[in-house]
């Protein structure tokens, strides 16, 4: 069936040049400065005197071809048939005539797409598959993202925060995406050791690989009902699911014990402070679909406290570094618990080794 002779392979992606709007192509490498006309609307000015307007619209990332076509219609109407997406999955429309801005925004609104995401505000949430498409998800991705964005959309549209606030979500510890370095991160977590499907395990999985996959050496080979299988020392399991990744017969998904944790203070840019990892804020919130109100509320609280106290340009991690973690917990009312204290390999390096404390 496959036409082996005429098969095309290894051509790589199309060359980007053919997709560039004319003003972009003409001024490639010649941009001089930019200004923000209003949230979601940028103007880049070139050495040549040319200028390009960019209107950034939020989308749902999970898009139907129907919607893509509608968006293409807008790009045809305003941008000569060009558009782009951003590294955070927003949609950008570029053109040269300032008078197109408001009509485009109106058309986007009509289509249900808000404009914003630039400057010191919240932009789209980098997220993952969740119950839409992944086997190890401890929570859904798109549903929480939608619920949170519904709540914080004001900061998307108004850019009214001290600094950028990047939110990310991952549905399991694999952390596909940006969770480990985000201002606020939502992470799906399992809390029950894998259940062992002994029957399928011996067929589906290579036992030495399974044993080797566990970072805490919780898994040992064992004979079960006369057949080779594994056993798990539940005390040593920290639910990383690495065993499940290599062996489908060790599922961790568990409706009663899966849920969500909240992390704060990461960043990626080198601006001012060096990049930082996100740190644990709230260890566990039960899954509460369809709208996860506790997660939404927790994030709202963190944003509000930060917004009320931070200086201009201070991202959440920079703000906490200035005020100290004890104050972060005091101000947000989040309880500090045993699980906040690191106990993995480099744990000792996270202990407070000075008397620099506030009271």
């Amino acid at each position: 069936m496959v036409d082996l002779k005429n098969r095309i392979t290894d051509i790589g992606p199309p060359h980007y040049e053919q997709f560039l709007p004319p003003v972009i192509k003409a001024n490639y490498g010649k941009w001089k400065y930019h200004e923000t006309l209003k949230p979601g609307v940028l103007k880049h000015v070139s050495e040549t005197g040319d200028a390009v307007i960019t209107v950034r619209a939020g989308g749902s990332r999970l898009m139907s071809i129907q919607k893509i076509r509608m968006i293409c219609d807008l790009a045809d109407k305003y941008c000569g048939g060009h558009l782009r997406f951003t590294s955070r999955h927003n949609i950008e429309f570029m053109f040269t005539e300032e008078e197109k801005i408001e009509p485009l925004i109106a058309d986007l609104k009509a289509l249900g797409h808000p404009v914003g995401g630039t400057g010191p505000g919240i932009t789209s949430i980098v997220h993952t598959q969740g119950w839409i498409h992944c086997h190890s998800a401890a929570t859904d991705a798109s549903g929480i993202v939608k619920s949170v964005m519904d709540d914080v959309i004001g900061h998307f549209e108004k850019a009214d925060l001290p600094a950028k606030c990047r939110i990310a979500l991952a549905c399991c510890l694999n952390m596909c995406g940006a969770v480990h370095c985000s201002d606020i991160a939502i992470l799906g977590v399992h809390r029950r050791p894998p259940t062992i499907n002994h029957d399928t395990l011996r067929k589906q999985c290579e036992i030495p690989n399974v044993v080797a996959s566990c970072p805490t050496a919780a898994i040992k080979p064992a004979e079960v009902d006369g057949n080779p299988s594994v056993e798990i020392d539940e005390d040593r399991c920290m639910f990383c699911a690495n065993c499940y990744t290599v062996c489908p017969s060790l599922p961790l998904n568990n409706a009663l014990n899966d849920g969500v944790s909240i992390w704060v203070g990461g960043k990626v840019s080198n601006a001012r402070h060096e990049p930082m990892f996100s740190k644990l804020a709230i260890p566990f919130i039960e899954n509460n679909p369809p709208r996860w109100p506790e997660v939404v509320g927790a994030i709202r609280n963190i944003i509000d406290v930060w917004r009320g106290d931070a200086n201009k340009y201070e991202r959440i991690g920079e703000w906490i570094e200035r005020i100290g973690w004890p104050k972060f917990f005091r101000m947000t009312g989040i309880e500090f618990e045993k699980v906040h204290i690191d106990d993995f390999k480099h744990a000792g390096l996270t202990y407070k080794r000075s008397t620099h404390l506030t009271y």
Partner: protein
Amino acid sequence: MADDFPKTPLIDELEKGPWPSFVTEIKMAAKDNAAPKDLLGLLEQSYDEKICHWKHGGIVGVLGYGGGVIGRYNDLPEKYPNISHFHTMRINQPSGWYYSTEALRKVCNIWEKHGSGLTNMHGSTGDIILLGCTTDELEPTFQDLAKEGFDIGGSGSDVRTPSCCLGKSRCEWACYDTMAACYDFTQEFQDEIHRPAFPYKFKFKFSGCPNDCVASIARSDMSIIGTWRDDIRMDKDAITDYASNGMDIQKDVVDLCPGKCIDWDGKELSIDNSSCLHCMHCINAMPKALRPGTDTGACILLGSKAPIIEGAFLSSVLIPFIKMEPPYQEIKDLVEEMWDLWCEEGKNRERIGEFIQRMGMGNFLEEIGVEPVAEMVAHPRENPYVFYEEYYEEDDEEEDGD
């Protein structure tokens, strides 16, 4: 046709509110396609039971490629037969995610023909994600796309689809041509993208300046981040304008400079460029007045990744500064050198960052033939546990060893 949608009271709640709704998208696709309709039912069931209904993938793909397709089956195939296979295809996006509507419509048409009509624009590595394909349709989808100039991206233990910020195409700060470099590397490593042969995945991300708008320092095994080594360009009049327009330059710029190298006397701004850490902040704050210098290039860093298994890493400096000129041969040679070593000595599922940490950065550098420089470390060692490889013997007074 809308009438025979499954009852989905829970996820219907997610059609409310101002943010664009993925549920609405699925419903839109479901009008013409049975797969999204089943997906609605399955998702509703997940929302009800608080658990996901997908199973491990197994190996599916297109002919001759080892990666680019994520196999997926649901665990209730009788109930949701139209998504009993529901694989995703990762389609390599064009540099900078620029499209013509023409090209995008072609992708839509192909996906309408072969798949679910659902996509992610884009996945978090950067690919176009075609969400939900049966096993049979993988190859036809691929070849139809290929005819339009699109190819499949990475998955598994291969080079993952490289991505880049829009760089020189629209950003005044790009210190090298990220889109060109990303395209060039992607083409160079087609074989490595399509045929997994590494201990684990390997990601490239290209950012034009230290703002790092593709998060390369956090999410790529090799992070290529633009920077400069001469002086920040300054437009004194524009600085005066910022000041007279009410900017508090002392508080918002000078006090936040991590190099502590800016002075502002109320009239003139001066920068001690030899102490500048190239963080971008002053430039970000005053884009009309300040710009990176003109002796530009990139800083190359290695090893970032998500936490599994050794804990998350940020990339660390390998080459503090290098000019970025096609064909980037020096970098590619180094990449090959590293891959050879990693393939030979890396453990299964060991990212290069973990590998370097396990063998020691000093040893790693020695093996790949790069001189150690102080820029590679946050600080020199604090512990005195040095593995010297040679010592003098009493009789010969010569360096000896093992």
